[in-house]
């Protein structure tokens, strides 16, 4: 047992030093601070992380919020681990094999895993978890969806479990690596929806146990000393290095960034674009960024809307916007321009050949619009066709983003009126989407697997059924590619199919990919080993803190 030193002292000394530093840096230039010697990783100490959003419900099996998956990752392990660069490797499941053409998955579990309540992880526990997720009473808003055509789980042996699906379901392994399908102690599953949602009964097998939680304020985590089943590439093995850590919920940007720069927190999530440069300039801080996998921020053009049935108008819209300039100025140089619906960070699916293949060309756009009959110009300079102005209706949930407003301004120069119809009434917006009363939808969707393309372009994934096919692509060729990709076992074959889908959507101007979503976390230099997972959320397991600073 290492010497019992009160947990508060490092924090207080840190605070004092920070005060001195803050006072010094406040008035003098930043060069006064000598770079710390390259310290060795050590165990002990704690850190405070400022998150932008607080989950409404803490139960990963029911909540649809991605922040829930992030805050519960340290507590719940999963059968499979997905490395930051997308590879899947064993975790609680030592090995797995698929059979019956990808309809059945058989997992070989580790035998040394215990939950925080001392219970043992075995096949029955895995079955209990999956059955709980798909049970009607649980009213799961997302996890059940991830299990797709789930038929049931069979216990084959004490540590052997078989998961069956009604049709081949390739994305299951990637889904099984998320916190949504994380393994909770079967006893805790009976605690009832309100306790699980309140985050008071989160009992998993992860490297950290759930500590004290004050809603609206902060959530504490303490080290699980018995932890010995970390995945190979987790960057550390055995119990976590930190004694514990605290996540504080600071929703107001200015407050969160200020807390980081004044040293009151050791790391802060979601730095606004204009603050990144300032945080980088601060010698005591660093900025860790990572592209978010899945579907980038893209304009999906409704190929069935009266305006956009004409492919020439769609192409003109696609080529009118000078996206390079907009992305550079709105995100002040920290943004990455996107050329395909998929983010480069999506493993085995991104088609880099599309880059620079459709640069903005206002002259071409002009000619196409003339051919399509949009020759006239009204008082404000918008193009008209027999009196009617060229208006593109874009429904927006909540507030129109700064980027959307920039695109609106740029399109005006090309004579196209982008009408941003903002509303906080979720129902009205979803009704508008379901009934197709729109020309374009700008959205993005984080997902660690190329299969996200299916939910955007598979003809059956209509908006009413909860799918995302806003472009209303109903092309048998595209459907075929997507189904084959779902069934394909080898990653390369899947990548080839996905590449064809991406090229089709660009060539037919069904989409205008804009920028890659980026997660940027500000970190105090005394914190090391805090790396961003594939879905660009920080992993605390391998993190450690320099003593004394």
């Amino acid at each position, binding site marked *: 047992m290492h010497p019992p030193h009160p947990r508060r002292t490092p924090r207080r000394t840190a605070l004092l030093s920070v005060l001195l530093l803050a006072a010094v840096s406040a008035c003098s230039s930043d060069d006064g601070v000598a770079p710390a010697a390259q310290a060795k990783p050590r165990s002990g100490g704690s850190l405070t992380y400022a998150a932008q959003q607080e989950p*409404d419900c803490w139960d990963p099996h029911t909540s649809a919020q991605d922040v829930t998956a992030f805050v519960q990752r340290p507590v719940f392990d999963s059968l499979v681990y997905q490395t930051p660069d997308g590879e899947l490797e064993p975790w609680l499941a030592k090995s797995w094999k698929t059979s019956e053409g990808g309809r059945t998955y058989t997992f070989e579990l580790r035998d040394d895993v215990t939950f925080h309540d001392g219970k043992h992880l075995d096949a029955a526990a895995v079955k209990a978890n999956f059955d709980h997720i798909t049970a009607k009473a649980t009213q799961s808003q997302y996890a059940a969806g991830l299990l797709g055509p789930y038929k049931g789980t069979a216990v084959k042996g004490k540590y052997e479990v078989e998961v069956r699906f009604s049709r081949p379901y390739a994305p299951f392994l990637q889904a099984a690596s998320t916190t949504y399908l994380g393994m909770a102690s079967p006893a805790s599953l009976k605690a009832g929806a309100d306790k699980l*949602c*309140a985050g008071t009964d989160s009992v998993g097998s992860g490297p950290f146990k759930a500590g004290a939680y004050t809603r609206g304020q*902060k959530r504490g985590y303490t080290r699980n000393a018995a932890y010995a089943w970390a995945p190979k590439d987790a960057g550390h093995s055995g119990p976590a290095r930190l004694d514990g850590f605290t996540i504080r919920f600071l929703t107001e940007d200015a407050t969160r960034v200020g807390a980081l720069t004044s040293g009151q927190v050791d790391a802060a999530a979601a730095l606004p674009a204009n603050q990144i440069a300032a945080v980088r300039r601060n010698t005591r801080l660093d900025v860790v960024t990572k592209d978010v996998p899945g579907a980038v921020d893209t304009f999906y053009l409704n190929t069935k809307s009266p305006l956009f049935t004409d492919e020439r108008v769609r192409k003109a819209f696609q080529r009118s916007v000078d996206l390079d300039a907009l992305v550079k100025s709105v995100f002040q140089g920290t943004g990455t321009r996107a050329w395909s619906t998929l983010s480069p960070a999506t493993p085995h699916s991104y088609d880099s050949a599309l880059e620079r293949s459709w640069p903005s060309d206002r002259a071409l756009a002009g000619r196409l619009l003339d051919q399509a009959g949009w020759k006239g110009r009204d008082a404000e300079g918008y193009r008209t066709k027999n009196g009617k102005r060229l208006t593109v209706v874009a429904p927006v949930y909540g507030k129109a983003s700064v980027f959307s407003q920039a695109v609106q301004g740029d399109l005006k120069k090309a004579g196209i009126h982008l009408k941003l119809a903002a509303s906080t009434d979720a129902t009205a917006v979803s009704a508008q989407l379901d009934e197709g009363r729109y020309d374009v939808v700008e959205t993005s969707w984080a997902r660690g697997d190329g299969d996200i393309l299916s939910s955007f372009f598979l003809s059956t994934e209509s908006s*009413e059924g909860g799918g995302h096919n806003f472009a209303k692509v109903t092309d048998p060729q595209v459907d075929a590619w997507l189904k084959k990709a779902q069934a394909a076992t080898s990653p390369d074959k899947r990548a080839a199919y996905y590449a064809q889908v991406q090229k089709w959507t660009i060539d037919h101007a069904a989409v205008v990919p804009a920028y890659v979503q980026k997660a940027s976390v500000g970190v105090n230099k005394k914190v090391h080993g805090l790396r961003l997972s594939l879905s660009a959320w920080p992993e605390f397991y391998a993190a450690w803190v320099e003593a004394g600073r």
Partner: protein
Amino acid sequence: MTPPHISAAVRAVTARAGAAVLVVWGAATCAFLALHLIPGDPVSAIVGSNALVGAEQREEIRHHYGLDRSPLVQYGAYLKQLATGELGDSYQLQQPVSSLLADQIGPTAQLALWSSLVAVVLAATVTVLTSGRSRWPRRVSSAVELLVVSTPSFWLGIMLLTVFSFRLGWLPVSDSGDARSLVLPVITLALPIAAVLTQVMREGLLGALEQPFSLTARSRGLAEHTVRSRHALRHAALPALTLTGWFTGTLLGGAVVVENVFARSGIGRITLQAVSDRDLPVVQGVVALSAVVFVLVGAVVELLYVVVDPRLRKGTGVAAA
């Protein structure tokens, strides 16, 4: 037959209690009507816009929360809930609203009480200091008061944070364990209230200084500042006490913004979240709670009013010559 003044006192108390119940009922009904008038289907508010939930599961949720019943039936159930204090479950947080409010009322009450205290003490001191003979302190103070009243509170909060917490680092942002994190939010909430209170109290105090009893006090050899603090200040309190309705409303309303800016937990923050998520049970719970608080504070202040002004005391009819 009970002596007249006892039955009258009882009648007065029951009348006030009746009025209080009426106010709480009125506020709750307003909230119920308002939330039901809001266009859109509450189920999609519960589910949120990015969930993968099929149609029949939506029906499941609608039935679970009883949203499929006629509005009148829902209203009846809602009033019964209100009466029994069992406020149902929050849609978003899937927790009983009563327990949710119970553990969130602590920080808000702490913030509200400290802010009220600071506002009243600040207003009284500034009033006494600026109602002296020379005119310029009064001019400067009223300019500052106007400035504070017309600055939106979120701006004030962020300014204070940027200077005292981030630049100078004297005060932490929001660490409920650390009392110092209470200083900035209290100042942000208390300043606008103190500004208005000072204007009203100073008007009252200057008026009192011109009353004949101030002249008598001076004729007894009292120094001007003693006349102000011992006699006039109490008279200045009377008009301030009439502002209770506005005072409590501003306190609760202000808490919403301050808790958001300073990332403090509390009722304000939940209210804002609940209204934008159309979380009916939580909003109705908060409304009932604030109505009760409003009525309680009103009763307390009415008592205070009688303590300060003996002329209103019941048992003080005119004694015979």
